[in-house]
């Protein structure tokens, strides 16, 4: 179906693992591989730039520079020669989220190799998401968990940084440890949430919900249409007029 009605379009040469294929110039690397005849099994997940399955490295003839991209997001360019790196062996340390502390000790205990960072910045240059990878590793080395979490938030865990790190660090697993520590221990807890969980546990809403469940469709429709709608512009502390079902 992706072929339907395609107008005659300019074809450009690309080299998939060294072999030349002529593909329409508007395609992504992912679709170009399919156009060339590949049936993707590895290296394709969300097709939308968020799962990190399709990390790809490429070069242009005569250039020393290694370029990177997500195959599902990067449009082909003439003469690029490319390979997907859909999997790279990585270390993932096992820890108990209930017992770890949000501190440098935790980082060093589980990922001591971060201390080997050479600050070469290759990880940052290898990131298809433009994340400042080296900076978050530096934050990890300082025990600055908040910075580690914030800088790495957009990470799709494609592993390109890990594939190229001369210090053999698995950056993205350090990053998720950091984000979980931050989310659990550093961000303040939501008190209203704890209260609500308690109210539900005590059965506060039990009777009104059971009544709703037994209500016929007509009455339900009426209740539905009469719901008081929180205004779009209302601030955080807006309260409804009718509080009987709170």
């Amino acid at each position, binding site marked *: 179906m992706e072929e339907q009605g395609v107008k005659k379009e300019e074809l450009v040469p690309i080299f998939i693992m060294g072999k030349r294929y002529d593909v329409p110039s*508007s395609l992504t690397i992912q679709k170009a591989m399919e156009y060339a005849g590949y049936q993707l099994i*590895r290296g394709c997940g969300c097709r939308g730039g968020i799962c990190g399955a399709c990390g790809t490295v490429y070069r242009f003839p005569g250039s020393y520079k290694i370029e990177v991209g997500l195959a599902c997001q990067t449009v082909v360019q003439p003469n690029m020669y490319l390979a997907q790196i859909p999997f790279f062996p990585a270390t993932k340390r096992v820890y108990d989220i209930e017992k770890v502390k949000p501190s440098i000790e935790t980082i060093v205990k589980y990922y001591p190799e971060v201390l080997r960072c050479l600050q070469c910045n290759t990880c940052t240059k290898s990131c298809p998401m433009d994340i400042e990878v080296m900076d978050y590793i530096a934050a990890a080395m300082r025990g600055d968990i908040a910075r580690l979490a914030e800088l790495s938030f957009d990470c799709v865990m494609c592993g390109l940084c890990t594939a190229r790190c001369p210090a053999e660090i698995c950056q993205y697993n350090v990053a998720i440890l950091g984000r979980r520590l*931050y989310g659990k221990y550093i961000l303040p807890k*939501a008190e209203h949430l704890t209260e609500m969980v308690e109210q539900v546990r005590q059965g506060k*809403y039990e009777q009104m*919900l059971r009544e709703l469940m037994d209500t016929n469709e007509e009455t339900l429709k009426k209740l539905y249409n009469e719901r*008081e709608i929180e205004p779009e512009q209302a601030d955080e502390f807006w309260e409804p007029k009718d509080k009987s079902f709170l």
Partner: protein
Amino acid sequence: MPYTRELKELIRKVEATRPARVERKKRGEEFPLLSLKEREERLRKYHPDFVEGARREIRVGVNKGYAISPEIVDLLEARSRVDPDLIDLTKIAYETDVLIIGGGGAGTAAALTARERGAKVLIATKLRHGDANTMMAEGGIQAATKGTKDSPYFHYLDVIGGGHFKNDPELVYTLVTEAPKVIAWLESLGCMFTKFPDGRLKTLHGGGTCRKRMHYAADITGAEIMRTLRDEARNHPEEIKVLEFSPAVELILNEHGHCSGAVLYNLETEEYFVVKAKAVIMATGGSGRLHIQGFMTTNHYGATGDGLVMGYRAGVKLCFLHTVQYHPTGAVFPEQAEGLLITEKFRGAGANVLNIDGEQFVNEREPRDVESASFIRECTERGKGVPTPTGKVGVWLDSPMIDMLWGEGTVKREFPGKYILFKRYGIDISKEPILVYPTLHYQNGGLEYNCRCETSVPGFFAAGEVTGGVHGENRLMGNSLLDVCVFGRIAGENAAIYAKEKFKDGKLTLDHVRRYHRELEEAGIVTDRVAPMLLPDYTNPKVRERQLTTHYLGTLR
């Protein structure tokens, strides 16, 4: 790829009408909303659910006579990928307490609770662990967590109203009462929800909510939940094993009629092998990649409805599959963004929707289904769609209006993800409109199950997008991430308990598959179609013509 010369030419027409449209908007003059009767009419005439041939009756199995999308019926009226006589059920490759089919949000949540209950878990998944629709959710997750203005009571009303009052009340009850617990659970696992400095969770409205209860983690909520759950599963490597690139193709029952495992397929070595389990959870998600009626989709590569097929062959009923959710604004340009979701928030902020002449043809804030139907009418019957270089059509979503209405920089600030993405393609969406068309988004229905996630087959549980009932005929934004967490957890718990307390060992069998094949023959269905599909086929048909010695089974070679 930036807009082509032809498209830039057409954008001039949008720019020509823009100042007057902005003025009208400022004066509060809106394109008239349709009356309820007109809505009904528009849907009946143009919504994909209602077009000729949108539904076909299933001719075999427990739902014989139920009319649903022909693309799904084709899969149900297909043979197994593998001849049951060829599979040696005495050769067991893996044995486990709980087998979970599908490593998305529901499957992974289930694994965690099953483990907590002391079960050994095996997750079999088609792609990598976490390559799933869950990863793609952006908008957020609903839950009534603010007792001063909201409660499960209002959440219940919203869910059931959104679902056209057809939802299963017990399921909705479970969804809304478990919701706050699930958010607390995610918080305790370290999910980075977006919060105020004092820890209050930030919440927004979603379509059809009466209270702001959409919790979010910036604009990658699903990814944040998925990667956290996956990391937690990986913290228990002894009790939770994961087989990637190993989709299930058939359930295995035993002589008592209980579900006792599955046949898996190694996508790389092309071997089939047997997993024996005391309980099985189906969590294979949705079916956008079936491209119902040729629509593009927001779904991930593996969303091919496999769980529906496997469950149905084992005798589980399907429900609520007669409606399909289309999202009105999927990107159609550039090529690499095709199908990508452009959130409802753009229209909420005032961006008009326009045809090739730069004229409005529908109010931009009609409900999702009415909006979609109106786009389709404009592009088909009225022939006023905007053609793309790859032969698609779309309508303009006039995003630059947002800056004109709310001040320079609003688009960039409020929609950073989309702004940056399009910027990379050379399109500045604060200055140029976005080309959109309806896109296949969500499988409203699926396997019938109850609030304990049990199905009609003992030992067989289901959770997530593969199921039907909790959302009725139409799911609201934010209730699906919630669904997968709530019911994933329940499925895991109950499957573990079942494995421990109710499991009864017996001889493994694939007789249900043989029976199903016989039924197909008796119904006169002679076909070489096979199902489940496993992966869609996007290879070049011209290449296929030259693959003279290649054998394809369904879409896979």
